[in-house]
């Protein structure tokens, strides 16, 4: 297991974490190592700049938002919460993690609309949608085209005609999507 000792003693509350998240101890150890390698200043918790070092996130058009969304919950990211960082992703997406199976039907939890809704007023306004579109579409798309897409998307989903997509409307428009299947990640040993 590398230079770090393979005993579980390094991780506080290992047993409980394993029970909570359903991960195996090997998996937990691997996550712990990852945590330590991410935590550059050895502060014991993660901060946004630790994430920014990840090149992959720089390449991700919504990388910034994801980081913000992670940290918006205000939890200081010591290892125990991080090991349930899958649980955070549960928060984000309200779907099942690797082992857990949540029977709650609306899979689009408040977390995923948070990726759109930056000012946290519970609605996705046209401006916010535009921002997302700008981030996710290539540069060849002109501003007018973006406007028309945003307009159209709101038209499709906005049921109470308030020119913004509330969380319920968002949920409704996604109910056809099989989010559970999509938002699950399986890892190879």
């Amino acid at each position, binding site marked *: 297991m590398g230079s770090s000792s393979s005993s579980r003693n390094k991780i506080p509350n290992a047993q409980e974490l394993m029970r909570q998240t359903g991960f195996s101890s090997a998996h937990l150890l691997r996550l712990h190592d990852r945590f330590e390698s991410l935590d550059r200043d050895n502060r014991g918790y993660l901060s946004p700049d630790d994430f920014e070092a990840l090149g992959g996130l720089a390449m991700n058009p919504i990388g910034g938002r994801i980081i913000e969304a992670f940290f918006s919950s205000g939890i200081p990211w010591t290892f125990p919460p991080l090991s349930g*960082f899958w649980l955070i992703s549960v928060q984000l997406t309200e779907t099942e993690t690797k082992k857990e199976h949540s029977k709650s039907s609306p899979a689009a939890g408040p977390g995923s609309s948070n990726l759109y809704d930056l000012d946290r007023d519970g609605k996705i306004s046209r401006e916010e949608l535009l921002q997302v579109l700008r981030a996710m579409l290539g540069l060849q798309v002109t501003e007018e*085209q973006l406007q028309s897409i945003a307009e159209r998307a709101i038209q499709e989903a906005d049921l109470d005609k308030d020119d913004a997509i509330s969380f319920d409307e968002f949920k409704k428009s996604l109910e056809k999507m*099989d989010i559970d299947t999509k938002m699950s990640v399986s890892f190879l040993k």
Partner: protein
Amino acid sequence: MLRCGYALFWLLESVLLICVVSSVKGEAVVTREGSNITGIPIISFKWHHVETPYLVAFWVLVSFLGKLVIEANHHVTSVIPESALLICFGFILGGMIWAADKVQTFRLTPTVFFFYLLPQVILDAGYHMPNKLFFTNLGGILVHAVIGTCWNAASLGLSLWGCQMGGAMGDLDIGLLQYLLFGSLMAAVDPVAVIAVFEQVHVNDVLFIMVFGESLLNDGVTVVLFNVFDAFVSLGGPKIDAAEIIKGIVSFFVVAFGGSLVGLVFGLLISLLTRCTKNIQIIEPGFIFVLGYLSYLTAEMLSLSAILSIVFCGMCCQKYINANMDENSVQTVRYAMKAFANGSETIIFVFLGISAIDKVIWVWNTGFILLTLLFVLVYRFIGVFFLTWILNRYRLVPLEFVDQVIMSYGGLRGAVAYGLAVMLDENKIKEKNLMVCTTLIVVYFTVILQGITMKPLVMWLKVKRAAVTEVSLLEKLTNKMFNHTLVAIEDISGQIGHNYMRSKWKYFEENWMSWILMKPSARKKQDQVFDVFHQLNLKDAMEYVTEGERRGSLEFVRNENSIIDFKKKSESESFDINNANMSNDHGAIRDPIPSVSLEMHEQIMKAVREAEAINAHHLLDQHLYKSRKQHRHRFSRSHFDINRDEKEVQEIFQRTMRNRMKSFTSAKMGVKPPKTIVKHTQKEQQQKPMKILSRSFLGSEGDSASGYDQSYMRATYRAGAGIENPAFMPDLDPMDLLQIPPWLGESELDSSMVALSHRAQVDLPRTPSNLRRLAPLRISTRSTASFTLENIPDTQHACVFPQNCN
């Protein structure tokens, strides 16, 4: 409809006539041998001359007419599946024939079934198989196909034998081995029946592919089991020892893998052939049919699994054929295959019905038949639930309970079982007729009863149905969003996921297989987005034509310059601009609105809105950034593409850098970005801009294979004063700034395309030492590790990672 019915009955009468005629022993027929003719016959009735083909053609016609009658009334077919109705139709026909000459002259013979009727159906199944879905669920499918079928066979055989021992079935002369043989032929779920019933029910993809895949793959097991037990029955009890059993097990692997291999070889052959058939496009479609059939026969010849062979042939070649062949040929193949498959299915079911009316096989044994039915159902349920319970512990998305119920209930037996039963040797197996009868009854039960009740069951249990609606824009966007999130999670956790394997396969497939099997022109067009674009264009073109025909001519298309005047002003503006920008993509319907009826205007508005919708969807499809999972490495030996992927990657990177610079300069200026939770000290804030830059160039995964030494990146530097003071950053290693991020380096980026963030461009210090370093940068873009290491300045490195610093 009534007229059709009458025509049908008239035809049936003529059929009867022919049967009667043919069964009469030859006297009344005039033969060609002219030994006792007295004069020249002006016209003669040469029945025997055409007997066989005539009968074949006639039966095909009758079956098709039966289908015509059945499909005439949709109310009936929505309740009772077509297959059940066809069987009933077969009953009627059989009854009429039997009434005519008291002898069953027509039945579904194994030869006809296995050689002439089954291959098309399976080829169609393989060709239209959703490969991605299939391979994702392959594990589960295999478990059910192999273990499930074995379990079914063993349990059925043993239970029946046990019951006979217990005396429940009266006096039957069937030994244990024969029971096992019977079990093995009853065990297999039948693909034809499954298709027939499930195609009307539209359950969700995963459920369908599990049942359907299982029905296809279990042929491997069925063939082996049937042959093994048949051999055992011939050998007799005493001769069976461990060696024979081991041989049986080995033969399973040989049969299954051998069959698949044969299919694969033929599939590759077809793909290669279609690469060269540009000049004979007219018979291009013929190749797949012929070669598919040959793969079936080859496997059959080698006593391998023929169904597996033809399935894999179809699955393997579908992608390449569709890419290589001309559009017309692709359509031809699709339609012809569907026509053949559907026709075969129809004939199969009609004959299954006719075969019932045969006095020979009417052997009734209540215990045997009822117990068989019971056991078949019960053991299917037990098997499926048990296996799925095991599978769910390893599956990412477990199969739900209702899905499992439908899976068990959908274990239909069909013509394959009947064919195998008829192939039994009656010398070895005295009770063959009983077995045939039982098989038929089970088949009827599953197809008719389970078929009829399947749809209500699916609705009652509220099984997830297949999505048939179009994806909305928001869904598309959110879908992409989720993809990116998943990639981000994988990055953060630094682990290799399922996608690693998939991307490896994609790499192999794109570079080797596509290169060999696809035409170069087809390879270029492999872009999915282009495909969507193409489909949309086709759809538009068809809409134009129908619209034009409705209006009398295509004149309206020619007035392209006129702008439509809308009630809603804003729409028109965006629409105009849309059109201006997208005119090269596809135009929209433009027509000066005359003072015509409102209806016309409505039509136009609707069409325009549709066009707009298509535009919007289209834009999204074209321009959404692909997540890293989707970026492919494109290596074309003959063509240098402008690789959109790299541009995308750069763009994203640039933007992210820009955003970060913005947020941190504003932080520095005292304007706190709204979301920063962690509080930095003043010093840290100053250091931040540069830290971010250098850090962002760090390789992401600490253990990644880029061979990137992270330690040196943490060049120590004094607190920089921000963008305005480049002079205060003497120690900033320019290597950091110019360093090509490893992920870009991996994708063979031309270094001239590296987009330095604007900050880097501003700050590029031009000392002689740096110029020297600049040079090697341009030459070797790949081996970032080697030359950067040699240029490590002798600044102190804060070794952050004790384990990485050497």
